[in-house]
């Protein structure tokens, strides 16, 4: 963004405080423009003819440093790029890294369909939502344009996920684009050898394109400048991903390009592609899959906006999805939830009373483990300054006194509200059992160390 204070954005707003945007004042709206939680289009008066200049000026001033590029169409379209900072704590990162998994045109049809289904169907539950994969990269191994186009057609018939079409032969890409251009695939790649032909394809089919210059930032910039000069700006840059020996160089190239982009070098301020599947060129089996995940972590943290992987084993996908969520979670979201005693489902006088902390992640994990298994209970959320159970026991933020205080200030008398007069401590807080018994006079049971085991625990231990 070219501006960084709400006042600078306020200058260009209608300044009527009409409230149509849902904010009390234009100034409040301006501060949300700066923290990027609202868009210019959210101010209805600004979209009118009389404010057209203001609208355009603001849009330009607020445009993110790194250009946004959209791949695919409709509900499954993904947007990458759009960052304004180098460190997530400075604001947040926008548009999570797009994860594409590869298939190739030498797979037989059944194999192809089943792999694409695996990619589009994988989902991992995580605090109230599902983490999923984003795209399918189709690679041309056959060297044959028709065979590649046929594979692309099969993939399109199987999924609506966005596609990356991979071949360095413009004729092959052309054949695939005939089939797939309406889906706005990303094409890989324009190089120093084929860039004129690929630029021609981009002008014809209006699709985003990857520029590839392995280990050569001058050439990468040169490609980007050249494409921009003919109006092609939906670009993704691939400086090359070296899996082992050249990893340091590749890492450095990502740092350099992104630093330049955030510092205002617009010539090179495009989304970046990493290719962790290069791990499979040097390793195989579990070692390759592990190393691929290692590369995913490195380049998700340091500036990869889209990447292509091979392994769809759960032990690859789970850490990959979670590291991406780690990096792209908005650090401005609260660490803590409200403390108190809450009903989950419709608890009766015989239902259990569980204790947990007010660390948001702990709370949401426990809450979803309980409610997704249709368990009725009371959940006592103790104010531990937003620290998880194990660390809070060690650090003294979860104590018998704190637990008693949580029940007292919620006005929840366990003996009065239940027939059993029992509370259940998290397994990781077992050492507090005696103290809690003394402080509250209640029966104290020790629950499982992981709330995922609550259903089994209730079956074997809860007889009230």
């Amino acid at each position: 963004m070219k501006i960084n204070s709400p006042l600078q954005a306020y200058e260009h707003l209608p300044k009527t405080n009409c409230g149509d945007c849902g904010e009390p004042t234009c100034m409040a709206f301006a501060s949300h423009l700066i923290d990027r939680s609202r868009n210019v289009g959210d101010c209805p008066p600004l979209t009118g003819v009389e404010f057209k200049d203001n609208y355009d000026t603001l849009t330009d001033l607020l445009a993110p440093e790194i250009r946004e590029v959209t791949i695919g169409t409709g509900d499954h379209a993904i947007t990458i790029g759009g960052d304004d900072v180098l460190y997530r704590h400075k604001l947040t990162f926008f548009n999570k890294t797009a994860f594409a998994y590869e298939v190739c045109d030498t797979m037989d049809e059944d194999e192809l369909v089943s792999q694409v289904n695996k990619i589009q169907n994988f989902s991992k539950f995580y605090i109230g939502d599902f983490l999923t994969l984003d795209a399918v990269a189709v690679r041309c191994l056959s060297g044959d344009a028709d065979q590649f186009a046929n594979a692309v057609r099969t993939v399109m018939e199987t999924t609506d996920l966005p596609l990356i079409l991979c071949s360095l032969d413009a004729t092959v890409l052309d054949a695939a684009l005939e089939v797939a251009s309406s889906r706005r695939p990303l094409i890989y790649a324009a190089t120093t050898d084929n860039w004129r032909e690929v630029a021609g394809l981009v002008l014809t089919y209006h699709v985003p394109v990857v520029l590839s210059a392995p280990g050569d930032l001058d050439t990468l910039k040169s490609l980007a400048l050249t494409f921009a000069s003919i109006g092609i700006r939906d670009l993704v840059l691939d400086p090359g991903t070296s899996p082992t020996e050249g990893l340091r160089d590749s890492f450095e190239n990502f740092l350099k390009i992104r630093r330049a982009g955030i510092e205002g070098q617009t010539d090179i301020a495009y989304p970046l592609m990493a290719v962790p599947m290069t791990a499979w060129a040097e390793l195989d089996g579990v070692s390759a899959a592990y190393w691929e995940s290692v590369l995913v972590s490195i380049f998700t943290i340091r500036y990869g906006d889209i990447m292509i992987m091979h392994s769809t084993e759960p032990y690859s996908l789970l850490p990959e999805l979670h590291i991406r969520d780690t990096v792209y979670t908005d650090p401005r979201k609260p660490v803590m939830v409200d403390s108190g005693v809450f009903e989950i489902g419709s608890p009766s006088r015989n239902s259990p009373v569980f204790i947990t902390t007010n660390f948001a992640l702990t709370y949401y994990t426990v809450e979803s483990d309980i409610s997704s298994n249709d368990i009725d209970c009371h959940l006592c959320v103790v104010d531990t300054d937003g620290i998880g159970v194990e660390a809070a026991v060690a650090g003294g933020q979860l104590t018998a006194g704190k637990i008693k205080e949580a029940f007292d200030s919620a006005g929840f008398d366990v003996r009065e509200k239940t027939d059993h007069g029992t509370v259940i401590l998290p397994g990781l807080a077992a050492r507090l059992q005696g103290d809690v018994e003394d402080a509250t006079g209640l029966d104290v049971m020790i629950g499982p160390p992981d709330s995922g085991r609550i259903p089994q625990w209730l079956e074997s231990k809860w007889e009230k």
Partner: protein
Amino acid sequence: MTTTITIADLNKWLEDVLELKGVKIEGDFEIELVDTGAGVDSGVAQAVGYEAIQIAARLTDLAGALGYDVGSIGSAFAPLASPVSPVSSAIPQELIPATFEVGTVSEWKHGIEEVVLGATSSDGGTRKKTVTLGGENALPFYFDSPMPNPNHVSIDVFDMPIGMARAVRTNYEDVLEDPAEWAKKVVSKFGADMVTIHLISTDPSIADTPAREAAKVVEDVLQAVDVPIIIGGSGNPDKDPEVLEKAAEAAEGERCLIASANLNMDYQRIAAAAKKYGHAILSWTQLEINAQKELNRKLMKQCGIERKDIVMDPTTAALGYGLDYAYSNIERIRIAGLIGDAELNFPMSSGTTNAWGARESWMAASPIKDDSDWGPREYRGPIWEITTGLALALAGVDLFMMMHPTSVQVLKAVTDMLRGAGAGEGGGEGEGSTNGGGAAKIPDWVGMAIE
């Protein structure tokens, strides 16, 4: 009758026409671009321009196909030779030359303190090796400044058998009852740079082992291995000061890392013991940068701990269980140190073993009904520990406390690779001045066959 078609439609139509063999077109046709009054902005004009170029090119091709001499018309749109690129007239013949340049970060002027752990005979100890942490002048692995010391791994050893994930336990089954043997195994078999002896049996709610007895275990471990060690308590804030004091005394002169001092306990007593017996101290806070500043300040000002004797543990939360907080907290601390916060520029340690608390690392299957299959857990655990550690390595952690041998091996391999061989001798800086590199080591993955 008038039919309105867009330029793009016309272009598309012509494209189809081109594919017809022996097509006959009769009469003239004319293209008129009408300004609709809405104003044609430069973007639209540009787009129209491309479409027009394509149309012209296609008409030319079409005319040629129909047998007209297009030489004279063609020259206006030359070159049209490439069948793939009938629009190539818009595309320059040569790439626009460019040089990429980017600077280093000027405000990273203040180095991270260097802390040496372990004392050899020349320093009054009995260690054969020492470990040096910190000393950075940039974020980890950045080209701005070479990273003087590699990352190090200390493997956890406990003074009694404890519950652990099956994937971890299978590696230690034979040594669970004997901390000295356990320590030997992690050094000789699993490549640990250091050993952490956790005196957890001292916890009153576990076995309430007396401090004096626990100190003997520390002596045994020091006998068994020649690497520097970390001495950890049970985490019980009431008992730990006494336990760590006795242990520090038993290990006098060996320059151990005493783990740890925390604001919620008698940190002064622990600090005093570390100082008296010549050890470094681990300053542990919980995901809070200001608390970390406060504790470091108190250790220095109130307890007289020297700067070269402080390592920080700002808390490690596992991947999926708060790693986002841990990551940003550590990255903020490191950047604050680099730009000159003298209460935060110390090396950092991570309890990476916490990754094994994540259910994904040890549970046989997902407890959530709608989840996709999680697959075999023996592969999930180590990569969970690796990913947790690696993220924090990138944020600024120097020392990792870990458990699974595979995780240790992979984390060391990747951090060494990122640091670059010979970086300490200035190799990293040299590479920083080139524009890219490593091209030869980038595999051609597009056409690569995978078994």
